[in-house]
């Protein structure tokens, strides 16, 4: 018997020996492993639990599995609050594929995507304020088409402009557990750059996926032409 096989046996013996509270049920672990391996899409805890025996400790199993695979060629990742096996990122060189990328993103599109990601929910006027230029409609349309951003609601301000946010596909693509896990969020927040106005000691907004207090859910049937209305509202104010 090879050394590896011996080790496996050691693991199994230890697992059997341990109290159920301490160790994950090895049969359940095999099941979660099989389900996640087989799936083409990330699975959430609910989806896993419907396939597992009742009472299985999904959270504990996922944690164990994550540890088992931590240093392997394949890792268990949490993306968009769901779980998926992915090849280890340090092996990218081995697997990297030159993708026929959905049109190379322009600098404007990349910036816009970042602004939407970090500032969501964000209106077009707010994006324009940050970038200091008028947005071309094509940029937003393109990001919508790729499926990385979506209209999430309307701001409760005059004109009721629509607000944009990122999608689950965005989180999956960039390997993020949630928008709160965007790189550098804390620094940006600390510097006050995620606020809509210069630092003034007001509340610090987080990028949030749920509706914020000044945001209404988006109703596509709402008659308003948001941009036009925003415009006219501004005129009124002036």
């Amino acid at each position, binding site marked *: 018997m090879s050394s590896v096989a011996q080790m496996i046996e050691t693991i199994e013996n230890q697992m059997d020996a341990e109290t159920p509270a301490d160790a994950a049920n090895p049969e359940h672990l095999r099941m979660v492993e099989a389900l996640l391996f087989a799936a083409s899409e990330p699975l959430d805890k609910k989806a896993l639990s419907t396939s597992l025996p009742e009472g299985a400790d999904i959270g504990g199993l996922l944690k164990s599995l994550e540890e088992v695979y931590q240093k392997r060629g394949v890792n268990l990742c949490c993306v968009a609050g769901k779980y998926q096996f992915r090849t280890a*990122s340090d092996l990218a060189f081995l697997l990297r594929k030159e993708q026929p990328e959905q049109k190379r993103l322009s600098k404007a599109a990349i910036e816009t995507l970042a602004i939407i990601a970090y500032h969501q929910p964000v209106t077009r006027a707010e994006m324009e304020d940050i970038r200091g230029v008028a947005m071309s409609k094509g940029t937003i349309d393109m990001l919508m088409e790729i499926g990385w951003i979506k209209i999430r609601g309307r701001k409760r301000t005059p004109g009721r402009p629509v607000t944009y946010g990122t999608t689950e596909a965005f989180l999956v693509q960039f390997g993020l557990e949630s928008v709160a896990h965007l790189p550098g969020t804390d620094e940006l927040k600390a510097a006050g750059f995620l606020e809509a106005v210069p630092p003034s000691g007001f509340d610090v907004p987080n990028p949030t996926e749920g509706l914020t207090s000044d945001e209404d859910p988006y109703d596509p049937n709402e008659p308003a032409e948001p941009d036009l209305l925003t415009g006219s509202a501004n005129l009124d104010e002036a």
Partner: protein
Amino acid sequence: MSEAAFDEFEATAIVADDQALLIQVDGFEGPLDLLLTLARNQKVDIAKISILKLAEQYLEFIESAKKLNLELAADYLVMAAWLAYLKSRLILPQEKIADGEPSADEMATRLRWRLQRLDAMRAAATRLMGRERLDRDVFGRGDPEPVNVVKLRTYKDTLYDLLTAYATERVRKMGGTTYRPVQPLVLQIEEARERLERMLGRISDWSALTRLLPLEWQGEGRRRSAMASTLLACLEMARDGKLQLQQTAPFAEIFVRDAHRATDVPSEA
């Protein structure tokens, strides 16, 4: 992608270093982008940048562009005007400020903050695009095993359906017909009278009897029966004083009217 994005940022900055900058005005994404590039050229932390110096650089840039007859977009000129105003206020001794108007320092701080924010968001964009991306750097299972959906078919058919099918089928094959309520051949006089009584209020003037027949009683025999029964009902009602009848000649059209409204005679009379 991340590297490419970074390269683009760098390219803009490098261009800004020499005189080619002037020709590249189209390469800037608006006045704020241009200001940020100029600010970077001061080679100090943007937080500590001299806004006065920056304003001068910007105005110089616009002047050179004008000399080269480059067409400048309106927003560059608006920014130039604003910076000229800011510059004059920064140079002049503190004068009295109109109510609610920000001081020159506040305006400078605000501009500095906006440049910092744009810079920070660009850095964040670069970092975001530098992440390991699915299907480019990291990969999911290449040959996933899909979940097989097995349809558990159940049938709703009951014994009732089975017996109905059998009875219908057998009877049909035996030349029988399924039961259908037989349409009565004769309109009962009572039925005709009931009908007329319901219509009474609506017969305003002399109306032809043939127009009072029930519409659904069509076809040779049925129509004759309807005519006969309705006429008999009319006669009964005339006897009771509820209707008046009029016929101008034998076999001519018979006219009916409500006895309670009777004040004149038919025009033919």
